[in-house]
């Protein structure tokens, strides 16, 4: 399978490039839109939660901290959602292509994962730029982002592929994922710090695998703190599990997909 994908690397690369162009060059304001969108969200959350609701992070008193805290959680979370959702719908969306062309089907989720990573890096680059201007560039702990990103993308792609294949057979899968992600968002300490929850809720929310990942991002960006790898270790196992599930479902059913598209 990997060998087949390697032969199609130029197809994958140009699909990612075209998606990038389509997203950033298609409209009059181009790249601005994809920045404006998360910017608007961050602005709203920062104003409402940071100013109006006077939410303050424990131990940090200045005004920009909440914005950074928010971005640290929200941007990776958005990538996670984008990857998972687009993987879930990719085989249905590309039904036309699947029916007409022969190529390794696994190329499609890879294109999705690469595209969402590119988007993330653009917006995240802007965030880093702002942090430099604010004099809050985190320094070395920033390298800790790389394994975190790999982990969360692997989890998203693994489950996403499994759901994406199932979605071809039962279109309900896409809807379920949409609803699930809404709950998941609020069960992850992205717009609120974990510490404001009651002890029982904290325990519950800690069971959410995204909690530790988001916490690690927030640690890096807000406190210049390298991730607690021990807390992340189970996630490596989860990522492998997700990948195994995705692979198993894909192997079992991917061949039949075109019959249902």
């Amino acid at each position, binding site marked *: 399978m990997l060998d087949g994908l390697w032969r199609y690397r130029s197809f994958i690369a140009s699909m990612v490039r*075209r998606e990038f162009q389509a997203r950033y060059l298609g409209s009059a304001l181009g790249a601005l839109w994809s920045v404006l969108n998360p910017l608007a969200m961050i602005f709203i959350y920062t104003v409402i939660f940071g100013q109006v609701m006077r939410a303050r992070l424990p131990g940090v008193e200045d005004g920009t901290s909440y914005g950074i805290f928010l971005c640290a959680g929200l941007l990776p979370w958005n990538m996670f959602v984008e990857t998972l959702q687009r993987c879930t719908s990719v085989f249905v969306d590309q039904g*036309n292509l699947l029916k007409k062309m022969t190529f390794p089907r696994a190329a499609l989720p890879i294109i999705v994962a690469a595209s969402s990573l590119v988007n993330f890096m653009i917006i995240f680059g802007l965030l880093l730029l702002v942090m430099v201007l604010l004099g809050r560039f985190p320094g070395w702990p920033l390298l800790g982002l790389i394994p975190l990103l790999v982990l969360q993308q692997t989890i998203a792609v693994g489950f996403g592929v499994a759901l994406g294949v199932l979605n071809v057979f039962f279109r309900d899968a896409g809807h379920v994922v949409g609803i699930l992600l809404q709950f998941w968002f609020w069960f992850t300490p992205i717009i609120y710090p974990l510490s404001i929850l009651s002890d029982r809720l904290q325990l519950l929310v800690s069971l959410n695998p995204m909690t530790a990942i988001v916490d690690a991002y927030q640690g890096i960006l807000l406190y210049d703190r390298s991730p607690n790898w021990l807390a992340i270790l189970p996630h490596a196992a989860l990522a492998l599990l997700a990948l195994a599930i995705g692979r198993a479902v894909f192997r079992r059913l991917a061949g039949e997909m075109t019959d249902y598209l």
Partner: protein
Amino acid sequence: MGRIVARGLGKKFRVYRRARDQLLEWMSRGGKTLHRAEWALRDIEFEVSDGESVGIIGMNGAGKSTLLRILSGTTLASEGSFEVHGRVAALLELGLGIHPEFDGWQNAALACRLLGVDEAEISKILPWVQEFSELGEHMNQPVRTYSTGMQVRLAFSAATAVRPDVLMVDEALSVGDAYFQHKSMSRIRAFRAEGTTLLFVTHDPGAVKSLCDRALLLEGGRLVLDDAPDTVFDYYNARIAQREKDAEIEQHKDAEGRSTTRSGSREAELVSVVVDDEAGQPARLFRVGAPATIRCRLKLNGAMECPTVGFVIRDRLGADVFGSNTFHLDVESHAGSDGDTFEAEFRTVMHLGPGTYSLSVALHREHAHVDSNYDWWDRAVLLEVVPGERAAFTGVAALPIEAVVRRRPAEG
């Protein structure tokens, strides 16, 4: 290179009554069977040697497209195995389907990559694609703005920019204008001459005859004949006639209840309408210029003079192509009594252009059915005219034609 071998290929589709049933069946992990198995293909066994061109014909739902999809690798076979050697280019359905938002260049380039053309070659190919597809400035527009004809032109040009070892074409070319059909056909012919193996699915026996060394006839998912195109064509023709005859009987029964296709006072009524070929066999498929005999059997429901029998042939758009009746043709009239049956016979020649036509028949008094309509049977028979020995032409009327070009002394 270019060899194709199919061994016992079969394709099963699971048909579920409700979407829910599929989930229930899965959850039972083999405990329950809630689907009905439908075999679209079964026991398909054949071999195509390098450079051979093979036509696959058969009626709708015979499994032609499914077979091509399996061989091109877009669908898995449920049983059996196959080998396809060499680089394959397949035109399975309309268009390329890569991305409607991307422009013609990007779609063509991506399609070439999927077909395994290497990067260096792609930049050389693209101008050729623009030229052959004659899309011109449209290449800069997103493909979603293309007409179906334009999509076909782009898809064909991109898929055939580099000569493949095996070319599979699934009727995709029947869409689009006649001009491009001819252009793409001559390209396919050129590939064939250069040694490309060709697998060609079509409804059009004429195309198979002119392009293929061999034809496979599929029927209900089975390979029923694998022979020279002419042999397969004749057999297919006979099968269609047989099948339509069965269908006709049903249609007839059906029509008795419906006033839309049958109307009239029924003082006299049509019993059967058939069109016979040269051999006197009921047929539905005629080559251009083939003799045909329309036979209408009628019954009188009372003592009367045998009514005028008339017919009209219409093209697929419903425009009258030709019509006549026994009144205009000065056929001797007969007196008759209740229950008498007569047969009217019109001997003609199918000087019609390729395409589908309908035959409507009517019984009335004197010269026109407005006068006194006894029985009017709309679309009693559907006919298909396919290219024959005659030189190609366009339109519905096959006029006699001769051409000559003479050299003239220069003027002045």
